């Protein structure tokens, strides 16, 4: 952790040009307490992630080796500080890494607070698909697998958190006679790692230890998030307060009210306790509606347009069944939702499913609203395939990007995974929803079957397009907390935290797909989002890591029961403690701008810096944002120079009457851009 500290340090106080800093400040000013305490805990997620994006390189080997050397680095770097840009501290660190590594204790494994070493195996061979095999020491803790080899020049480090492991496979080689075993870790984050090791007498088998801590829930152990003891200066659990969020949207108003009907999750156990529903509906009727909707997930408000009062309402499918059941209360409920918006005499339902599937569902007691029973309702199917199709698509994608890529057929191989096609369907659906609200001023109901997968994807994407608040670093966290976590996207089932049943058909990369869509939007509108790519990658990594409590469990009710907020740390605590790392320097607030991404494969790209990041040859282009940061530094430096000269000039004589000083806007130091450096 310590190694990041310079970043804040120097970002706050640009280095004087042309000179060495006389006294370097203590390197950990930002949030000293916890940081100091964790100097040895270099491997906390922060360091690994910051490295990721700063390097933006596929790092099979992570480089977090030592933090105790950053002071050397800064001292050494002092001499060329005069060249200006102070933001390149990662470079310092890296240099430090190279040279400092000599002093590193070889067997020292960096640990996060609360982490404990469970097994150490020496002479393990890591079969790197990119550079051949490496022999070193494997350490297994309750949080990660740490493999290190210090032979032959620069160290080789591999760091995998066990939460990312989807499947463990062993291969024994009987012919060999000396108990040599092969081990493969298939990971949720698109890589597979292969090791070979010897089974030692009187030593626990590494595979057993790995299985125990990778799948704690199957061994009656707790998830690591409950053991993690890092203290962050910011409390991420405070990011989302539903009441505050709805108030921000201007609720309650005369048509919409906060309902207490689900306070104890009695109406619907997968919904949050606070729901926004039409004012005029009685609790009795709501209960009837709940019975008519799958999993009791009644239509509730997610977002309201500040001007037109058109709303995004989400729900599950109506239980119409093969006999075309009706529910008067449900029909009136939708009518009331429509009436709440005076601008339109229509209500549009976007059913995310394929129409054929919706029809099949009807035979199985589900179904869709009949336009003849729901007057003024327009039903649209968005034709998005189900979670199983998505899982299969990502599996194929993994084959394309890992470990090797087929140079000659890269593009057609991507096409064949259909991954981008589904991304396009999702974005196109969300654009239609957003446009219906914005241009059509019409309220929409978004739903699929249960209303927790595609519904969450579509409603959150549409909200991201419509409301610039959600494009800020904080706002995006609120969006995820609200549309995904509180509304019961089944993270535990879809990700399979701590569960060894990798073949479970409940698993599906729905949230990954959503984040990919967000990334596509950031690519099309490089200045419209406050957060950067590192943030998105970090969110995805901790979707699996089980380090933070944020994505654990399937519903708000479960989370309350498990005391997640008191016993675990929120991912947002980590993110918001160092927002600089996750901020997009190009950001300008597109306030009141509705963003319509172009849902065309012509502009959708495979997110290689996430999916193919393990391939060291996937070096990204020289990042543009880096250049911007350099320019920002140059400007700061010049501004300081100009001000200095102005002071000199005015104090000496004559120029005092110069009007130039106020003529340029460049004099005011702190522009909003600065915070982004």
């Amino acid at each position, binding site marked *: 952790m310590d190694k990041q500290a310079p970043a804040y340090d120097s970002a706050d106080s640009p280095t004087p040009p042309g000179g060495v800093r006389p006294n370097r400040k203590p390197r950990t000013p930002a949030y000293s307490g916890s940081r100091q305490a964790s100097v040895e805990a270099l491997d906390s997620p922060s360091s690994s992630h910051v490295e990721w994006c700063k390097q933006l390189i596929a790092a099979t080997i992570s480089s977090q080796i030592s933090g105790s050397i950053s002071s050397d680095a800064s001292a050494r770097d002092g001499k*060329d500080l005069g060249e200006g840009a102070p933001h390149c501290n990662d*470079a310092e660190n890296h240099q430090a890494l190279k040279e400092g590594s000599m002093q590193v204790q070889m067997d020292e494994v960096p640990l996060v607070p609360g982490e404990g070493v469970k097994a150490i195996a020496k002479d393990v061979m890591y079969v790197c698909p990119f550079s051949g095999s490496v022999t070193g020491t494997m350490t297994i803790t309750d949080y990660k697998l740490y493999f290190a080899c210090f032979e032959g*020049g620069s160290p080789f480090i591999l760091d995998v958190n066990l939460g990312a492991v989807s499947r463990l496979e062993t291969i024994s080689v009987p012919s060999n006679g000396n108990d040599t075993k092969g081990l493969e870790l298939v990971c949720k984050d698109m890589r597979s790692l292969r090791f070979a090791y010897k089974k030692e007498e009187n030593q626990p088998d590494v595979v057993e230890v790995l299985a125990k801590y990778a799948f704690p829930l199957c061994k009656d152990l707790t998830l690591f998030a409950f053991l993690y003891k890092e203290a962050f200066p910011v409390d991420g659990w405070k990011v989302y307060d539903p009441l505050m969020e709805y108030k921000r949207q201007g609720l309650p108003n005369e048509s919409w009210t906060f309902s207490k009907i689900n306070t104890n999750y009695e109406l619907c156990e997968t919904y949050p306790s606070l729901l926004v529903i039409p004012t005029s509906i009685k609790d009795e009727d709501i209960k009837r509606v709940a019975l008519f909707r799958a999993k009791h997930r009644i239509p509730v408000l997610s977002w309201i347009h500040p001007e037109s009062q058109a709303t995004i309402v989400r729900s599950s499918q109506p239980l119409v069944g093969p006999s075309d059941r009706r529910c008067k209360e449900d029909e009136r409920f939708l009518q009331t939702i429509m009436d709440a918006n005076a601008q339109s005499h229509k209500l549009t339902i976007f059913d995310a499913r394929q129409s054929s599937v919706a029809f099949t569902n009807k035979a199985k007691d589900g179904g869709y609203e009949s336009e003849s029973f729901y007057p003024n309702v327009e039903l649209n199917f968005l034709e998005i395939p189900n979670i199983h199709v998505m899982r299969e698509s990502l599996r194929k994608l993994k084959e394309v990007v890992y470990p090797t890529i087929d140079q000659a057929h890269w593009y*057609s191989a991507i096409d064949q995974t259909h991954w981008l096609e589904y991304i396009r369907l999702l974005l196109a659906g969300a654009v239609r929803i957003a446009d219906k609200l914005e*241009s059509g001023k019409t309220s929409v109901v978004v739903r699929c079957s249960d209303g927790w997968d595609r519904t969450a994807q579509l409603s959150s994407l549409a909200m991201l397009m419509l409301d610039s608040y959600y494009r800020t670093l904080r706002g995006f966290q609120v969006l995820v907390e609200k549309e995904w976590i509180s509304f019961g996207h089944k993270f535990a089932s879809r990700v399979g935290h701590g569960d060894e049943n990798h073949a479970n058909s409940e698993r599906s990369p729905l949230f990954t797909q959503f984040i990919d869509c967000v990334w596509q939007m950031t690519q099309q509108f490089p200045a419209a989002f406050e957060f950067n790519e590192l943030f998105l990658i970090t969110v995805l990594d901790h979707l699996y890591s089980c380090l933070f409590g944020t994505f654990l469990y399937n519903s708000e009710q479960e989370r309350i029961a498990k005391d997640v907020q008191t016993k675990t740390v929120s991912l947002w605590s980590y993110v918001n403690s160092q927002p600089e790392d996750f901020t997009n320097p190009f950001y300008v607030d597109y306030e009141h701008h509705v963003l319509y991404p172009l849902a065309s494969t012509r502009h959708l790209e495979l997110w290689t810096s996430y999916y193919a990041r393990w391939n060291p040859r996937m070096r990204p282009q020289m990042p543009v944002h880096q250049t911007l940061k350099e320019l920002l530094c140059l400007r700061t430096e010049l501004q300081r120079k100009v001000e200095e000269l102005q002071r000199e000039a005015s104090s000496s004589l004559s120029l005092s009457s110069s009007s130039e000083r106020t003529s340029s806007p460049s004099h005011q130091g702190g522009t909003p851009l600065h915070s982004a450096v």
Partner: protein
Amino acid sequence: MFSVKQLKPTFKSYLPPVQTDVKKNIQPPIKKLEARLLPGEIVVNEANFVRKCIGAESSHDDLWGKLICTNFKVSFITHDALPKERFQVANRLLGEHDIPLTCLEQVVTVNDTKGKKKVLGSNQKLKFNPTELILYCKDLRIVRFCFDEAGPESAKKVCLAIAHYTHPADPQLLFGFEYVWRQYHGSTEERMNGSSPRGGSKTPLFDCSSEWDREIKRTGAAEWRVCSINERYAISPSLPEYFVVPASLADQDLKQYSQFFTDQRIPLWCWNHPNGSALVRMASISDPLQQKRLDQRICNAIIKSHPQRSEVVKSDLDKSVPNIQDIQNAFVKIRQICVMDPFEESEEKWLSSIENSQWLDYVRAVLKHSAEVVYLLEGKNASVILQEEEDRDLNCVVSSLVQIMLDPHYRTLTGFQTLVQKDWVMAGHRFLDRCNHLKKNDKEQSPLFLLFLDCVWQIMNQYPSAFEFTETYLVVLSDSMWIPVFSTFLFNCPRHHAETITDFAKSKSVPSGEEDVLHFPPVWNWSQQFFVKDQNLFHNPMYVGKGARCVQNGAVKSFRRTKHKSYSSTLRGMPSSLRNGVNGSNGTLPRRNSLAVLKADFFQLREEEVSPSEHFFRDWFSRPADPQGLLLPVLLPSHLALWKLYFLRWVPEACIRGGGFVAAYHKLSQLADEIETLQSQLRRYKGPSPAPAPPSGPSRPSSDQSKMYFKASSSYEPSPPPEYLSSSFPFSPVGNLCRPSLHGTPISKFLNGAKIWLSTETLANETL
């Protein structure tokens, strides 16, 4: 039959035809619609009441006006404004709706009612009255006109005129000649002052020996000399009059050697590496008996010119890179995919189609070959001879790419233009044939220059701060190929240029000795086409801090990017340690050989044979990249992208409103402008002190004239980019119809402002 003298204005006025079903939205023009003509431009034919199609679904946004064919362009004059605020950089030679005749690829007439369609060539007959005219342009635009209210006869005539004038029988019928002739006739005073052959541009043309000398000096090629045996093109018809050869070869030898080379194209020096290695290009040796002897002589001479007497490596391009026909075929395919195929139908298989076109394969092949030449020059310290049958096509591409990778000078605006002038124009790239300006021989047509620009874009895309110019510049340069007034793109070689001028002067009875005054301007003087303000679009804000310097503590200090370098070292640090991992494993493998018998497929140990060049590349990629040093492109398919600005800028459905890279460019540009202001302020405060003057040249911003297109905003609130910006910026797809019939898609409907979605069923079909 077809000569300039016959070009009498054939103006005919047609009364609007009597129509029974007069459409409601015809508004007969009140003011007279006049074509804007350049000097020497003549109206050939015109038709009134023509409708230019803007929207695909409805004619709601269409424009009404007059369609004019001149000896230079197809022009459309209207009083109507385009429906939406749109952004398009104005070209001073062309109006908003104008298309130069040389830019037309195909002229297609359609009769809707009869269901007939005909591609028109020169001097052809048209048996039906056209209701529509579709112009397919070489810059990938597709423009459609409807004649539903125009007189059938005048419609037919204007179509035939356009088709006819698109196929000039003789190069002298290209508009440039008339244009140049009129300028010659312009006031002598103007001639004396402004319009020197250099056209006010700093770009050397390499038509005199001093400019070659300067290039020799700049690259430190001490053992090379300018040779003038080809003065008056005495030796080779396609070489320039002056070129550079090894100092050890005497004129006499060269003359003797020349007869054995195709086209008498003896080796031609391109560039010298600081380490002394030279890049040389030559045609193949036509006499096989002489092959060995000649090769040896040439190589010896080049070795003698190397300070370390390093070896010479010959690189045969005919064997290693695609031929011009393949490249043309790939271009035709990718154009089909990008602008012709129905948008929605091509969505699903988009990436596969791009792959199948092979365009990116060829981009990669050419870049790869260039990178290997770079390895020879830089890594092996060897001189390289690029050999190609004629030395006039792929040699141009490869030699110029090699120089761009190795020499940062060629990544400046002036440097890049120097390079094109030196390695394309003067080296005798057949621009006239490859562009097919005369539409005579389609087999000769090949977009080699575009391939080169695409390759440059790929490098630029990977190293965005390494170039002084922007991708907009590259696109504008490619568009300039289709404006037939620039010497740069009109001729096959310098001699062709010279002879054409002489012939033309003769035909116009210009007194001998005055032919020099008749000249075609090179494209490099951009003021011919664009206002200074718009030329700022060529300047890359990310390049600020490279050429520019900042004043520090009274001394001008170059803003070296040390920090950036060390930043990059983190980037590259990983592969380096990885590689070390490999080395380490070599040592450890034997110790653990018991493991080597594990299932082979489990380990997939890929023991690649690493070639020396591969080793060089890996080593280079493991080190920091200096934007001002050698640059090698990453050639993985994931890193070579479709050049969207070029290929998709005219496709309305592919245009991201308010988005695209320009959003980032906007901010960078404003910031760079602010930095320039600060720098000039600093300079002012310093006063005319003895502080070293800032470097001259294009990198120096004058205080009142910034180089940035977007100026720093006066208010301190950063504002979002203006709404008219789009991914097509600075071009606009509005008014460019990409295909005759657009299928309605949700997005395109949305873009066109339609609020009504199709019914569920239709949409379902569409999205599938």
